[in-house]
């Protein structure tokens, strides 16, 4: 039961305080005055008017006790209130016992002789209804002082208040209507006029006080209910917000899932029914060692919160990463009742992290191989310079000249290497915005430029397919085409017969696929990836830097396409690239292209980034 707070600020409470104080003070003074009336035989105080019933001295005592008891209650002297109340109740009780048993306990003329007595056998004895009222009023005062503020006590006191008020009111009504002569009524109106007014005041005060108290208790209960409802609602909203954001699961102490939210189902691709009743082993990816979960369980079983990143497996076999917090819930006795796991999907940031790591590794490899390839000509220059000195010293001018040739060649190669490396580093920093480029037309132009090499290689170059529009920087497209052509012309020679190079284009989804096929020795499957690596050469003797195909791969991937090698039907290698398809008018936005990147790589399954 809620306790009533802030009495001072509540006008109803102020009214109750005033009413009970006035009633208590009135009855105290009334009782005292009538007792004095008896002592000094001053009848106006005893019976007010000569023809009315007198207030007995004991009644006056009861009234004094009741009034004082009420004052004590109001002031907060609880023990005094109980004592005084029990005295008043005892007075009423003993008088009733006298009536019921017809005995004489010698208490009736305790304070004063009843010199007005009509019936000598009952001289000084208060009326039975008055006695009953004192028993009730005394009990009520005892209750206020005794028990705590419990609802049954409040209701009892209220009931007593109503009954006492009724007794007083009926008696007063008897006086007012003048029907005191009838036996029954007369019996009732034997309660003195001022006694009935006293009871009316006492009963009224109790009724008022307790009805206000009970009303407030009810209001408090309603407020509590409303607060509870509001809290529940807020909790619902918070749960909703959490469910919108996080993956939530609840398990029993043994780890069996008892609840999963929608996000859990969405990310793991399992239905709730498939998860409830099982453990998290369903989504175990096998990524973490056993000790990882041993540590997790040790932490949460000890009642501590566990935090960590976990790799799980969705229904389709794909892996996802979740940033996980597991909180053990305990009951009042400290026993763990359930574990609540809240997770956030961090697969994307994990992927970025991994990409970054891979990019770093690539960069490291780049620097390593770049330094090697830059150093190689330097080693040559350095070495032959030494021999040059030696041959000059011993006077072998022919051999000295040979050394000078070597040094010059190495210097030229060094320059080429540096140029190519600079070219490589420019990819990604697109110098021109993508535009529609006709690969077919560009190939035709390139062929005339390549004529000397084609003649030198004694090759037959065929271009198949019609116009093919791609959406790229034209300079980059030209780089791709010339690198692939140059590659085919250098390495695409068959052991016997003449070289035949076929270039074909065809649309492939949102991409255009370009293939350059030769009829040369081909590339064994284990080297098909390596051939695109930076500074990778398969033919040791060839004059090649191992940069060209890597440039092709980087440009193509920059545009979201892929580069790979296939076997040419009938022998030889076919270098393939895909570039975003473009139309002269309607060009897809760059963001749309980016989204297609992963899809397309998945399609071009033969390709794998190193």
């Amino acid at each position: 039961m809620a306790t009533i707070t802030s009495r001072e600020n509540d006008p109803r409470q102020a009214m109750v305080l005033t009413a009970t104080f006035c009633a208590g003070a009135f009855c105290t003074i009334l009782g005292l005055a009538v007792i004095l009336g008896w002592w000094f035989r001053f009848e106006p105080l005893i019976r007010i008017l000569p023809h009315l019933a007198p207030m007995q001295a004991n009644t006056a005592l009861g009234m004094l006790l009741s009034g004082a008891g009420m004052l004590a209650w109001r002031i907060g002297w609880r023990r005094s209130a109980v004592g005084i109340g029990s005295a008043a109740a005892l007075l009423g009780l003993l008088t009733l016992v006298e009536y019921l048993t017809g005995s004489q306990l010698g208490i009736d003329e305790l304070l004063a002789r009843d010199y007005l007595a009509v019936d000598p056998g009952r001289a000084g004895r208060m009326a039975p209804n008055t006695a009953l009222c004192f028993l009730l009023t005394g009990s009520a005062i005892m209750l206020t002082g005794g028990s705590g503020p419990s609802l049954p006590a409040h209701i009892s006191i209220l009931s007593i208040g109503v009954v006492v008020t009724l007794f007083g009111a009926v008696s007063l009504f008897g006086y007012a209507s003048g029907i005191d002569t009838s036996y029954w009524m007369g019996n009732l109106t034997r309660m003195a006029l001022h006694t009935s007014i006293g009871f009316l005041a006492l009963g009224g005060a109790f009724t008022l006080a307790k009805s206000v108290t009970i009303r407030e208790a009810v209001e408090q209960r309603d407020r509590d209910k409303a607060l509870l409802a509001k809290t529940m609602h807020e909790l619902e909203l918070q749960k909703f917000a959490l469910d919108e954001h996080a993956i939530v699961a609840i398990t029993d102490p043994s780890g069996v899932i008892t609840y999963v939210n929608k996000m859990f189902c969405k990310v793991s691709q399992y239905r709730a029914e498939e998860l409830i009743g099982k453990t998290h082993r369903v989504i175990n990816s096998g990524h973490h060692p056993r000790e990882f979960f041993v540590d997790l369980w040790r932490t949460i079983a000890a009642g501590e919160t566990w935090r960590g990143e976990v790799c799980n497996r969705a229904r389709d076999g794909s892996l996802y990463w979740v940033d996980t917090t597991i909180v053990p819930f305990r009951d009042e006795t400290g026993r763990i009742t359930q574990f609540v796991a809240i997770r956030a999907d961090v697969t994307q940031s994990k992927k970025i992290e991994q990409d970054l790591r891979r990019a770093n590794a690539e960069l490291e490899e780049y620097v390593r191989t770049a330094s090697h390839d830059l150093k190689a000509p330097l080693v040559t220059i350095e070495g032959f310079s030494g021999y040059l000195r030696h041959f000059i010293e011993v006077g072998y001018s022919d051999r000295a000249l040979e050394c000078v040739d070597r040094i010059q060649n190495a210097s030229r190669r060094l320059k080429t290497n540096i140029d190519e490396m600079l070219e490589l580093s420019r990819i990604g920093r697109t110098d021109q915005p993508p535009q529609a480029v006709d690969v077919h037309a560009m190939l035709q132009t390139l062929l005339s430029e390549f004529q000397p090499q084609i003649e030198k290689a004694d090759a037959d170059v065929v271009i198949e397919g019609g116009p093919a529009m791609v959406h790229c920087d034209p300079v980059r497209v030209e780089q791709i085409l010339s690198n692939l052509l140059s590659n085919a012309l250098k390495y695409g020679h068959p052991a016997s017969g003449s070289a035949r190079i076929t270039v074909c284009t065809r649309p492939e989804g949102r991409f255009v696929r370009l293939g350059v096929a030769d009829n040369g020795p081909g590339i064994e499957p284990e080297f098909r990836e390596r051939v695109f690596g930076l500074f990778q050469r398969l033919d040791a003797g060839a004059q090649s830097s191992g940069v060209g195909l890597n440039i092709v791969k980087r440009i193509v991937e920059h545009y979201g396409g892929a580069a790979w090698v296939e076997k040419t039907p009938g022998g030889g290698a076919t270098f393939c690239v895909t570039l975003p398809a473009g139309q002269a008018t309607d060009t897809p936005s760059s963001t749309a292209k980016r989204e297609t990147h992963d899809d397309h790589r998945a399609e071009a399954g033969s390709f794998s980034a190193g």
Partner: protein
Amino acid sequence: MITEQKPVHFLLVEDNQDHADLVRMSLEINNVTNTLDHVRDGLAAMAYLRNSGEYGGSKRPDVILLDINLPKMNGHEILEQIKADEDLKVIPVVVLTTSAADADRLSAYRSHANSFVTKPVDFQKFQNMIRDLNLYWTVWNQAPTHSHIPNG
């Protein structure tokens, strides 16, 4: 004193023709009595060592001079294969490379390269190494089973 000099047989695994010529010229200038076979990539090197394919009649080398950056199969892979082969692992391997990177160095030692030489930017140092190798083989030619090459 050295009474009889058997020629030392080298296998040079090197894709860079200039570097191969540097080695050849150095041996020549230092009057090292030697024979030298040169292959350009790892596959060819393994075929040579195992007398397979076109290298059917190849001679077993006394020393392998191995470049690390090679096409098709890099030097580390070759080294691992040689040292995993009971027959070949006794042949001393000198790793030649332009890279002084620690990673390369460690990796080469893990695969039990007998010596590791950064390709000479210093001509004299390279000559010394070749001379040391030659001297070593002149003295120890009779017992090629226990291999240790002093670091050049």
